[in-house]
């Protein structure tokens, strides 16, 4: 029976240690029942203390934005804490701006719920839900952009055009942990049973590689949302919309939303930049909108037109095209202009400068940067 000694002894040591950890967890990590007061009485929940705030809130059905799933590496789950919960942890500080530190904004995934606390979150996060969605269609828009349509089943989503959802990517191949990535919804809010996303393949990207190479029609995926504040204002200012690649998504949603809500008179200039005709998509759909929205102008531009590709529209970098239109074509005298930018950080910064140079004030520029 000698051969039993080793496994029993090692298992015994492991068992004893595990029991000790569990005992200490029960005694030291037991904070009893605590209440979390959200937005001064808007919602009150009684929970078991001892877990991170982000996790505690999500088990109660309240979802703060989070891209890393609580590992403290994305800095998205910021929320304001009203009660005193002790000093900042070194793991939070790199993600917080000086003014956020003054307002006692914390990272919800890093702080533990130990006592009764009061928190303040944006009102529209109450609307955030987790959807178990089924993929019903995957379409190639270009060689590297796919349009993915999700059915929500019995659930419905209410959102403002321009907002995004977090797509929950399950572990696959060498990726051992579930990952979340943000994608703007390109479907119109009036379509409450479906969500459409545009996903561009980023070489080496965890989520985009999954969507492009593994995702199949009929598969189920979780979506959490809606999040974000990239929405059009209610004013009648001229909208200067600029997008590149899958930055098309929020604008598509906005324009169809305006069509559905009969807001067809607002002046819109939509600049869409691509390198070659191979990167262009939705040309017919976006041109069709010119007939339906009375003051909407679609300006697709190619930065590297190829010979013989039959392109007759504007060419050049999107910043140059924008500059040209702002100086020559668009009547800006005595009008308020608003900039809406969605695309890569480089494109956004460059277009932002062009807008500022042409008299669009920074407070009126809204953007959605791809991180």
């Amino acid at each position, binding site marked *: 029976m000698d051969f039993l*000694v*080793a496994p029993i*002894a*090692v298992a015994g*040591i*492991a068992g004893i*240690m*595990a029991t*000790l*950890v569990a005992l*200490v*967890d029960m005694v*030291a*990590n037991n904070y009893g029942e605590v209440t979390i007061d959200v937005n001064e009485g808007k919602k009150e929940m009684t929970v078991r203390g001892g877990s991170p705030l982000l996790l505690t809130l999500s088990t109660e059905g309240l979802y703060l934005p989070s891209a890393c799933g609580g590992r403290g590496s994305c800095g998205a789950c910021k929320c304001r804490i009203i009660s005193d919960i*002790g*000093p900042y*942890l*070194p*793991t939070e500080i790199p993600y917080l701006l000086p003014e956020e530190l003054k307002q006692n904004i914390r990272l919800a995934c890093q702080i*533990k719920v130990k006592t009764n606390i009061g928190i303040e979150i944006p009102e529209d996060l109450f609307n955030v839900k987790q959807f178990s969605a089924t993929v019903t269609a995957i379409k190639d828009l270009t060689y590297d952009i796919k349009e993915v349509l999700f059915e929500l089943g019995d659930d419905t989503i209410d959102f403002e055009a321009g907002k995004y959802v977090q797509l929950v990517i399950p572990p696959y191949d060498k990726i051992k942990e579930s990952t979340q990535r943000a994608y703007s919804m390109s479907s119109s809010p009036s379509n409450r049973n479906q969500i459409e996303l545009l996903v561009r393949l980023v070489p080496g990207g965890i989520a985009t590689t999954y969507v492009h190479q593994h995702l199949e029609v009929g598969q189920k995926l979780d979506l959490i949302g809606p999040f974000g504040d990239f929405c059009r204002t209610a004013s009648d200012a001229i909208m200067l919309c600029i997008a590149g690649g899958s930055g098309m998504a929020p604008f598509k949603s906005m324009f169809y939303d305006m069509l559905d809500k009969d807001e067809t008179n607002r002046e819109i200039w939509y600049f869409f930049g691509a390198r070659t005709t191979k990167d262009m998509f939705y040309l017919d759909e976006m041109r069709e909108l010119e007939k339906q929205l009375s003051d909407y102008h679609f300006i697709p531009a190619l930065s590297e037109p190829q010979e013989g590709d039959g392109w007759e529209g504007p060419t050049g970098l999107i910043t140059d095209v924008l500059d040209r239109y702002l100086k020559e074509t668009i009547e800006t005298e005595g009008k308020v202009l608003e900039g809406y930018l969605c695309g890569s950080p480089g494109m956004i910064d460059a277009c932002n400068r062009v807008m500022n140079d042409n008299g669009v004030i920074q407070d009126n520029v809204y953007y959605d940067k791809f991180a």
Partner: protein
Amino acid sequence: MTPQINPLILLFASIFTGNILLTNFLGLCSFISISRDMKSANGLGLAVTVVLTLTALINWAVMHYILIPLNLMVYRYIVFIIVIAATVQMLEMIIDRVSPALYMTLGIFLPLITVNCAILGVALFMQIRNYGLLQTLAFSFGSGLGWWLAIIALAAIQKKIARAPVPAGLQGPGITLITIGFMALAFIGFSGMLNVS
């Protein structure tokens, strides 16, 4: 056979001449990543010292009262790691509950050093060199203090380097590793004073 070394001498030897970090290069990853500011370096040094001493003593007991009598020394690696992981986990929870202030300076570093190889290294040296209980205490506590001393020294040097014209290709971990190399050379200078293993 337990070697005949005065624990007090062993304590000093493990701080200076046999510094676990600068002579054996154990525990380098957290050493390099957390040495940018003095406050974190101090907290991490304290955490390593506490965990090192505590786990080495527990592992010594486990080894002498369980592994050796049952002739299970081949399993020492896995057993030592289980003991270290569980101890650190418990320590973190207890500190978090008992003293939030201490948790701020020390507790947050605990999960980080569960996998610090200096911790396992000390347990294994203790076994290879047949240290007795008092010697283990001196060796592990001294190794912790030595690690602490090294990280504080590095944090101080890093402060100076931050204002030095480091070539672009060497910035970050590159210059840090070179610095550690020089520190190791400097510590070799101590080896004439005491030489114990």
